[in-house]
């Protein structure tokens, strides 16, 4: 399953969602003025078709992610965090109507998505080694499977390489998804609730791993979480959502002290 979306070649033609994505060409990005955010979402509105009637899901959402930054998206369940992430990636199904603009300037690099439920996202009948190799082949990426697994904090033992997803712990599955996500060295990784169901020790390890990938690979991330503590640990900037709107943004300390 491909998990990366080339915004320069993909016109968001999946389904009939009339998302108007303003993209700059790769060539244009050479010598791109500094200070432009890597991802800029402006006045994004999403409605969903329920039995022929459109119900608003996101209303006038504006947010940005800067190069080399970890941005956090925080909010209650059902407030629209995942819908926003899917809209950014152009993955909403045709029953959604999307308006507004999503501008991604990866300078030729792509956007990768880590889905909420690793058991659903990983192929259940492929061994870990094979499914990481599949992503490397699909993107003609330069790393080997063991290299990628090591970058994701997983020792590439024979047991791991031969394991099927259901034989791994929740933390291991998240890291396999991460290894796949960073295979093509994307400019931005969107991670939807990657800490859910991990024990506190694994949460701290994964948050610190994200921070080290940001430092070492220059990876930018948009991390969705309803856990204020983990975002406070790692996010440079946090956007708080409520009922389909961004209600606050700023440093983790400013936004999250309100709970």
């Amino acid at each position, binding site marked *: 399953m491909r998990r990366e979306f080339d915004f320069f070649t993909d016109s968001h033609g999946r389904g009939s969602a009339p998302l108007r994505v303003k993209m700059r060409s790769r060539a244009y990005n050479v010598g791109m003025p500094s200070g432009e955010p890597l991802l800029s979402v402006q006045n994004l509105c999403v409605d969903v078709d329920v039995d022929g009637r459109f119900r608003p899901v996101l209303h006038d959402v504006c947010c940005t992610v800067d190069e080399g930054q970890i941005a956090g998206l925080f909010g209650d369940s059902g407030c629209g965090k995942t819908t926003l992430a899917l809209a950014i990636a152009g993955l909403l199904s045709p029953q959604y109507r999307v308006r507004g603009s999503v501008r991604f300037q990866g300078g030729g690099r792509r956007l990768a998505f880590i889905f909420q439920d690793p*058991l*659903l996202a990983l192929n259940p009948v492929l061994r870990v080694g094979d499914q990481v190799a599949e992503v490397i082949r699909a993107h003609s990426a330069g790393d080997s499977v063991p290299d990628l697994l090591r970058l994701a904090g997983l020792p590439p033992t024979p047991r791991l390489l031969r394991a099927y997803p259901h034989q791994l712990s929740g933390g291991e599955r998240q890291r396999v998804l991460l290894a796949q996500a960073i295979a093509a060295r994307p400019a931005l990784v969107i991670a939807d609730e990657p800490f859910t169901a991990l024990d506190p020790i694994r949460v701290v390890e994964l948050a610190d791993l994200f921070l080290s990938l940001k430092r070492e690979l220059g990876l930018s991330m948009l991390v969705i979480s309803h856990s204020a*503590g983990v975002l*406070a640990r790692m996010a440079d900037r946090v956007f708080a959502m409520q009922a389909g709107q961004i209600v606050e943004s700023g440093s983790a300390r400013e936004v999250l002290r309100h709970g």
Partner: protein
Amino acid sequence: MAEPLLRVRDAYKRFDGREVLRGISFDLECGAVAALVGISGSGKSTVARCIAGFESLDSGEILLNGSRIAGRVTPAIQLILQQPAAALNPRFTAEEIVAEPLVIQKRGTARWRRERSHEMMQRAGLNPADSRKRALEFSGGERQRLAIARALAAEPKLLILDESFSGLDSGVLSRTLALIDESRREHGTGCLIISHDLATVSQWAAEVLVLDGGEIVERGPAAQIAAAGRHPRTRELWEASASLALPL
């Protein structure tokens, strides 16, 4: 002396030659809340699955109100799994999902079951107007609430929550806990909670059991374990949890 609601005695379980449970023993009284905590792979979910009857023990026994139940599924025990998307039938509407245990138990009329499912959805913080939506049309947190509404609709004697709170934000979590508390008061439902959210565990459970490598390495009142746990694994867990608290 009265039998406890749940009694687990010397439970052993092995998968692929690997011992996953190594002599687990504990009791749970009617209406009580106990928590199983530990790192991933420590055996918590296996304990839950054995009690719910999805797995049988290699040796040892599990008793509900004094009767052996190991290896047998009973509606008196409801297990809410950690992956709500995988646990709910994607073809059913929310209303059908919540009412299904009542259908299996052949309880009430179709109309009564529909009303009961709407009531349980409302009590779980879901809008009954969404009762015709299917599981995958709900958000992750809403699916968790749907699973909880479904489990409580059956008025179980024992509720096992295996990471069932992981998709819930704080507001919905407190509402969900209040809903479960209601069931404990009304029906004496005992509750076994498996959670990585140690703050919630410390507040809500009377007793905490720390599992490591398939063994209970420490047990005691939640406040005592949180403040003065002695086993290295207990300390490690609570220290990691404290480091995720807001530094404000």
